[in-house]
């Protein structure tokens, strides 16, 4: 058979070679964040990209300057909404650093348990969502099932499934429930089993591996220069984990490893997160063994802690103290502080400025996602269009945190 285009000139067949402009987002099905990427494509290769964030800017920092120090807790919950407990703990530690308070030992273990549970939920969501965006829907459903188990514990403890607002300056809103330890011990093997199942399904899948391996690579020094922290930095082989490097709470007393990757590609980030789920489980089990069943959870400090309800109703001093704490807020000494903890995505820092009153002068959060999202542009330039989805998924950009 004769070729159809016999009488066409070869030159005319050439496609126009100007770069094509493509707009991805801000509401894109394969991106679980609100981000917009303006791409310049040559064929399917990305020549230039401009990542635009800010579609979820909710004025966190401005809102914090209006209420009391304690009223900030609900807002920090909604920063990294996949692991709200870690934000709570981080903020509480920052204010306590200013007030020079150290919470009782039981509370420290309690905070660690809840925090690590939140970290598990964070990594499960990230890995699950990434798998889903690559078309693997079943592992996503499994991971969500495991996450429900974590949320069940958190709900039992705090009363809310997602936004707990459970931290307080100088302690927690409530002491641990008696069932906490048994719930953790029961849930963790089940979670680990689900994680393993999902892993077996994904890591033996050629398509999944091909789309992750050697894509979105970054070297250690580059990642440091970009201010990356957390799992994304560790995937490049730099073992910087705030829990190990600058231990807070009781992290120096528990035994855990820091999983690191080798080449900093998408696969490494995926594996580092899976490794961290396992380490978090180890930490929780150890903390469960070491946390006392009895003892105070809140510090005994009338400057920041509400008096017991019983006293508020019966004595005038407690009533006045309660009134002042609620209506004026706990007074935090004048000055500024930067406190950092390991959040779900990396170093979660709070830079607080107090003018000595009950209202913060400035609450600045250092969101770990922000510099990580900044690096997205470097990762995808020169790659294929379809590589954006796994790369973006593995960075775990959380809109609330990234856009404040």
């Amino acid at each position: 058979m004769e070729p159809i285009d016999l009488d066409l000139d070869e030159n005319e067949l050439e496609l126009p070679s100007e770069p094509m402009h493509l707009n991805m987002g801000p509401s894109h099905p394969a991106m679980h964040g609100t981000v917009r990427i303006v791409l310049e494509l040559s064929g399917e290769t990305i020549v230039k990209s401009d990542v635009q964030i800010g579609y979820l800017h909710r004025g966190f920092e401005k809102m914090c300057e209006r209420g009391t120090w304690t009223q900030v807790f609900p807002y920090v919950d909604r920063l990294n909404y996949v692991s709200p407990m870690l934000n709570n703990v981080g903020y509480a530690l920052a204010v306590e650093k200013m007030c020079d308070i150290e919470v009782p030992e039981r509370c420290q273990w309690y905070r660690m348990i809840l925090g690590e549970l939140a970290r598990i939920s964070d990594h499960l969501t990230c890995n699950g969502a990434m798998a889903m965006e690559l078309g693997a829907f079943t592992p996503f459903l499994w991971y969500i099932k495991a996450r429900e188990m974590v949320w069940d514990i958190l709900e039992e403890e705090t009363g809310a499934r997602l936004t707990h607002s459970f931290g307080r300056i100088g302690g927690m809103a409530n002491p641990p429930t008696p069932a906490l330890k048994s719930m953790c011990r029961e849930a963790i093997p089940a979670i680990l089993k689900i994680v393993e199942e999902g892993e077996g399904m994904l890591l033996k899948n050629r398509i999944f591996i091909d789309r992750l391996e050697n894509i979105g690579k970054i070297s250690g020094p580059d990642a440091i220069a970009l201010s990356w922290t957390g799992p994304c930095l560790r995937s490049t082989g730099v073992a910087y984990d705030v829990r190990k490097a600058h231990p807070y709470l009781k992290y120096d007393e528990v035994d855990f490893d820091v999983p690191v990757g080798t080449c900093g590609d998408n696969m490494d980030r995926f594996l580092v997160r899976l490794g961290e789920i396992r380490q978090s489980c180890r930490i929780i089990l150890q903390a469960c063994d070491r946390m006392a069943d009895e003892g105070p959870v809140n510090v005994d400090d009338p400057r920041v802690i509400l008096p017991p309800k019983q006293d508020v109703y019966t004595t005038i001093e407690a009533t006045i103290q309660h009134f002042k704490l609620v209506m004026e807020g706990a007074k935090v000494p004048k000055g500024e502080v930067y406190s950092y903890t390991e959040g779900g995505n990396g170093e979660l820092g709070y830079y607080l400025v107090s003018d000595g009153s009950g209202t913060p002068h400035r609450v600045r959060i250092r969101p770990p996602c922000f510099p990580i999202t900044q690096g997205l542009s470097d990762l995808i330039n020169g790659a294929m269009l379809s590589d954006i989805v796994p790369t973006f998924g593995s960075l775990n950009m959380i809109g609330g945190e990234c856009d404040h």
Partner: protein
Amino acid sequence: MSVRVLEALKEKFGDAVVETHSQFGDDTAVVRADKWKEVCRFLRDDPAMSFDMSVDLCGVDYPDREPRFEVVLHLYSVAKRHRLRLKARIGDAEGEGAEIDTVADIWIGVNWFERETYDLMGISFKGHPDLRRILMYPEFEGHPLRKDYPANKTQPLVPYRTEEEAGVTLEKQAPFGLDEGMPFGRRAWGTDRGES
């Protein structure tokens, strides 16, 4: 450990280091704004300092101080594990002249933080490669994190529907008044009390 950093800074730059303190264990140095870039370059390149990671950069507004703004940079050295807070004071009471050298060419990670500070605080960075708004939209006027920007002053991009159009009440019902649940005795900046 990094008290040594402060000493070294003072030794090297003398008068340019205006003030140092270590409140709550965070080592802080305030430097003159015109030496900002030089100090940063020294901190990154000197082998004893080797601050290879810029953790955070933000601005703070002190409306009753002169200079009004502080640019706050947090640095960390992954190898040496020490931290430093570096500050510079700029700008006059009206918020004019808030300008400082960019350090985005020293640590590329600062790039977005500087854009954010420019967007929300109105501090411009001289020589920044791409100083655009990042969190707010380009049409937005003013800088929301300044204390004199009313917290509830919106600048909608699409006109709101009117009640006639919608046929239902659109206003927020009580108890969502202005200042609902806000503490006593706070400074009133940040709210537009006059209008509503």
